[in-house]
């Protein structure tokens, strides 16, 4: 999501699952949709059968998705930017871009500052000491009024399209093939197929998931395809888009509600420690339009922020105390991500850990380090419906978890929780729908809801603060907690909090009351920055109104049978189903593809099957861009200062790679990545660990949960790795025999699946073997015991999000007699 927001304005899947059926080309790269999203994949099949779509799969392995593809090409893990930069070069060189769209709806014409440059793998402003950039040169040249300068004739050498052309010039088909190992003919065939969707009435959808995010350059992987889609005019249109297929049923909800250490609900950002006053904080959050007349919707930031603080602190947040700004935590580092958390545990700087709905011993890299970290804690609280490996980390399970229980002093509190089917609530799916669900069964045994548990912890903490004072009791003591049963707030009450209410009678310009004090808001358009409204998560405003729980709607009618059912559940923002849908129409407001229109200009307003992602009566002639969250109103080919490692994507090798970076040997891997010294020391090299490994999920299992279910355990019972026939022959590994796979950080002993589906790739002239490591097995549950793939993986993350590099690292493999006992 850290690349879609910098490109389009919002970090979310742009289209709907159902809309995939409208595509002419479906490209699955950086994901394995059939494997990981079999139910949603029906829409890909629908696109093929009903719309004659071509399915293209680019993946290191011939996957379940590839098994139904029209065309498959292999690629070395961690080289997607090189591949897609080559695609951009191809599109520009062959002039296969949607010209009108690119000129009007992207920042291709805007002029970049003189100081911006790129040479030898580094953009301007790099500091070797801090491994980060001074990004001041990564911006537009501004005129006297503060607007970005523009040259829509594309003559200016520093207009974005020309800088982009220059940047991708190095990614020739020869270079792409040399880096990625993809045969040139296959690569060019794919370029050609993608390029065909530059026609205004053709669309390509990009389906991706963790195959792109889980790299040290993950966000930029996604950004490169986002740029391809902008050049092809495929954003905002039916059958197009950048469709991030979320891996958990509610992971979009997690992002929306801001469960990251630098976020607050609704994509508001937590202050940094140098933003000591609310004024300082708001100074960098003005979002003044960068082109005349643009909507730049984040200009309303203060309304969202004040309404959030009112929701949290009620009457205690006042204009006088700057809406309780001082009670917010302030960040002293960019992110307290999980890699950092375990680094801190290992260094003794974090002593307690509340682990809610998370199983880091299985799910996070370098399992040995995770286990050592947990072993140093004073206390660990786990909250989970299942008996997780994390909650049993201290127990000796043999080679799969060789713990020395006697030496571990961590006190573990294992709190069983209810699961989603045992409580009311909403889940936000991939496509931003908030879908209400109803309790189907009572939780077993002593299991309690997360809400009940957290409320209990809160009340006890508040009591202690009341009695004992403490260093900083204000944020806890002043928290607003107005629920029927304070020990167990009803999910509907929490949903109403997030939607928000009027705190006084709200009046329109004529003085008429539009909403009475205490009534639920109709949408975020009613939010104000004077403390008269409250909303716990502004993007959800409209989900629970005076008309009732909109998330509980179940009307599946789809007016044009085009995959938009506006009365099924509720989608943020404002029930819009396809983001940036203004871009589905041309400059006059007529659909680019008359067969699949979303909205069009009627002469007085925007009409169609979706809520316009635009001012409902804004005339096409007003030259207001379709990307209303962006200050320039257009999609960004040049990301300004919003990415850690550069405004254009660049190919950097994974931190463990078998080859040098042939583009710039001195800058091999992401120069802006954060690597802790101990983690750096635990990176292996190709002479010791010559094979590229990549981890992934299988359809039969869901992460580390379903191994607790007998049927899933029967369907995929035992840990294995996938090894190509050529490598297996070289290493004398027989089908189904035992192997030992090792990285610098540890080893697993498991069965070998010798397969034709992984072939050696020729990378920089040398054969490169890929080994596939499915992740699902651990030491609890009904399936056979396994070591867990993350015993092998390196502890380094994407420079923007710190999502770990699970998809490309180095291992060795050897045949062994059997498991160690």
């Amino acid at each position, binding site marked *: 999501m850290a690349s879609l927001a910098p490109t389009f304005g919002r970090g979310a899947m742009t289209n709907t699952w159902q809309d995939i059926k409208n595509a002419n080309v479906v490209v699955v790269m950086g994901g394995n949709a*059939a*494997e990981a999203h*079999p*139910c949603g*994949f*029906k829409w890909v*099949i629908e696109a*093929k*059968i009903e719309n004659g779509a071509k399915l293209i799969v680019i993946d290191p392995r*011939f996957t*379940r*998705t*590839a*098994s*139904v593809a*029209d065309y*498959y090409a292999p690629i070395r893990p961690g080289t997607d930017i090189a591949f897609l930069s080559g695609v951009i070069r191809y599109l520009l060189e062959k002039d296969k871009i949607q010209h009108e769209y690119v000129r009007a709806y992207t920042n291709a014409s805007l002029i970049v500052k003189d100081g911006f440059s790129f040479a030898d793998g580094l953009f301007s402003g790099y500091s070797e000491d801090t491994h980060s950039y001074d990004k001041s040169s990564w911006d537009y040249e501004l005129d006297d009024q503060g607007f970005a300068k523009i040259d829509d004739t594309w003559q200016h050498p520093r207009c974005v399209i020309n800088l982009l052309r220059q940047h991708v010039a190095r990614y020739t088909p020869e270079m792409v093939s040399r880096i990625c190992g993809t045969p040139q003919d296959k690569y060019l065939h794919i370029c050609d197929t993608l390029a065909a969707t530059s026609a205004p009435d053709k669309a390509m959808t990009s389906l991706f998931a963790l195959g792109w995010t889980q790299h040290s350059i993950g966000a930029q992987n996604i950004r490169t395809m986002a740029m391809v889609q902008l050049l092809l005019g495929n954003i905002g249109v039916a059958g197009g888009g950048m469709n991030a297929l979320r891996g958990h049923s509610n992971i979009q909800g997690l992002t929306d509600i801001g469960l990251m250490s630098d976020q607050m609900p609704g994509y508001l950002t937590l202050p940094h420690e140098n933003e000591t006053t609310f004024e300082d904080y708001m100074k960098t959050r003005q979002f003044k339009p960068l082109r005349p007349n643009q909507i730049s919707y984040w200009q309303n930031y203060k309304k969202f922020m004040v309404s959030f603080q009112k929701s949290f602190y009620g009457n205690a947040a006042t204009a006088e105390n700057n809406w309780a700004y001082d009670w917010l935590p302030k960040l002293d580092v960019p992110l307290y991500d999980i890699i950092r958390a375990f680094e801190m545990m290992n260094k003794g700087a974090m002593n307690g850990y509340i682990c809610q709905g998370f199983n880091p011993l299985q799910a996070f890299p370098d399992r040995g380090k995770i286990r050592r970290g947990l072993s140093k804690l004073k206390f660990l609280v786990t909250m989970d419906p299942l008996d997780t490996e994390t909650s049993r980390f201290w127990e000796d399970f043999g080679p799969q978890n060789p713990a020395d229980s006697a030496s571990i002093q961590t006190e573990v509190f294992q709190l069983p929780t209810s699961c989603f089917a045992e409580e009311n609530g909403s889940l936000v799916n991939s496509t931003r729908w908030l879908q209400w669900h109803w309790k189907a069964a009572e939780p077993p045994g002593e299991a309690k809801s997360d809400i009940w548990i957290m409320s209990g912890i809160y009340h006890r903490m508040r009591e202690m603060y009341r009695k004992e004072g403490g260093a900083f009791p204000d944020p806890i003591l002043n928290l607003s907690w107005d629920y029927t049963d304070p020990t167990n707030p009803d999910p509907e009450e929490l949903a109403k909090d997030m939607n928000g209410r009027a705190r006084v009678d709200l009046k329109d310009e004529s003085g008429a009351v539009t909403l009475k004090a205490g009534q639920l808001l109709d949408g975020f358009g009613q939010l104000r920055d004077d403390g008269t409204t409250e909303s716990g998560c502004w993007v959800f405003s409209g989900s629970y109104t005076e008309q009732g729980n909109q998330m509980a709607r179940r009307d599946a009618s789809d007016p044009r049978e085009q995959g938009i059912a506006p009365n099924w559940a509720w989608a943020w923002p404002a029930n819009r189903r396809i983001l940036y849908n203004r871009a589905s129409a041309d400059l006059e407001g007529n659909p680019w593809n008359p067969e699949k229109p979303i909205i069009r200009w009627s002469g007085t307003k925007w009409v169609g099957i979706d809520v316009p992602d635009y001012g409902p009566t804004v005339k096409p002639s007003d030259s207001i861009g379709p990307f209303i969250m962006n200050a320039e109103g257009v999609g960004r080919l040049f990301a300004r200062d919003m990415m850690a490692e550069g405004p254009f994507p660049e190919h950097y090798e994974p931190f463990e790679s078998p080859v040098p970076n042939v583009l710039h040997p001195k800058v091999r891997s992401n120069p802006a990545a954060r690597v802790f010294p101990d983690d750096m020391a635990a990176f292996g090299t190709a002479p010791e660990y010559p094979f590229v490994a990549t981890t992934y999920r299988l*359809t*039969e299992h869901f992460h580390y949960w379903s191994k607790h279910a*007998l*049927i*899933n*355990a*029967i*369907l*995929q*019972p*035992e*840990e*294995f790795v996938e090894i190509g026939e050529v490598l297996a022959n070289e290493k004398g590994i027989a*089908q*189904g025999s035992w192997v030992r796979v090792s990285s610098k950080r540890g080893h697993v002993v*498991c*069965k*070998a*699946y*010798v*397969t*034709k*589906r992984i072939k050696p790739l020729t990378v920089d002239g040398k054969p490169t073997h890929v080994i596939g490591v499915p992740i699902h097995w651990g030491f609890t549950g*009904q*399936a*056979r015991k396994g070591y867990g793939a993350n015993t092998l993986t390196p502890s380094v993350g994407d420079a923007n999000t710190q999502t770990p590099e699970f998809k490309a690292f180095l291992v060795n493999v050897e045949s062994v007699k059997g498991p160690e006992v």
Partner: protein
Amino acid sequence: MADLQSQDYIRRSATTLTPPSARSHEDQVAKLIDVTRCIGCKACQAACMEWNDLRSPVGEFTGSYDNPHDLDPHTWTLMRFTEHETDDGNLEWLIRKDGCMHCEDPGCLKACPAPGAIVQYANGIVDFISAHCIGCGYCVAGCPFNIPRISKVDHKSYKCTLCSDRVEVGLEPACVKACPTGAIMFGSKADMTDWAGDRIDDLKSRGYQNAGLYDPPGVSGTHVMYVLHHADKPSLYAGLPDDPKISPAVTFWKGLIKPVALAGVALAAVSGFLHWVIAGPNEVQPEDEAEAEHLLAAERSKKDGDNRYNADKPA
């Protein structure tokens, strides 16, 4: 699964009487498995296990995604994965849902010596009636698709029922209901054949010149049909028979020997009755049990080679 009250049998094993067939106006049904849109997710397998309450033991990994490794008394349907390299060097991962084909001319039913243990309904579904099954294994020999499996626990033969219990009340089979990509469809045989035609046209337009429908004439067609990309080579799909036929031995048994054999069975019954009258009942002694187990074990190890018997491993 159906009981003796069913009025819609059109065939009944080891029975010379014509079944009453009061509901013979029923449509012939078919399940159409479009392997070209199957992603091998095993939702069908899971649904089959759920609906029929079947649980095989948690097995081992032996070098493919086929889990369990074969059909067994607890596994009535199974995804079989085949990695196939085409002549032009491209790879195909052919995934076929295996299970009973519900032949129009069912070899199992013909071979079965136990009256009413195997029936065929007017809608074409071939069903095993466990109460009548004697576990002789003749259905195994009679099946050209190697489907039935004999349980070592209750010595009955098991296979897919095409969810006859669901179909009887107007529902689709559980696997059809669960399939996320619509690769498994269910309806009248005519409709399924028709739809398959559209699919085959689409596949041909995508370069699969030999795409076609698998509805083999050697068994007078089947009520489970496949859309294949390579209908010219069904055996590419984990050994789907190119031209399945009922074994000549079964035909011989059915045509000539069966009446004689049945007379033999009747004679044995009469002799048994006389023996009981004259000498009293035979009691099974522990040594008889041991001997039976020994024989069964020998039989199993012999049959394991062609995977027709699969042990009920303790869970």
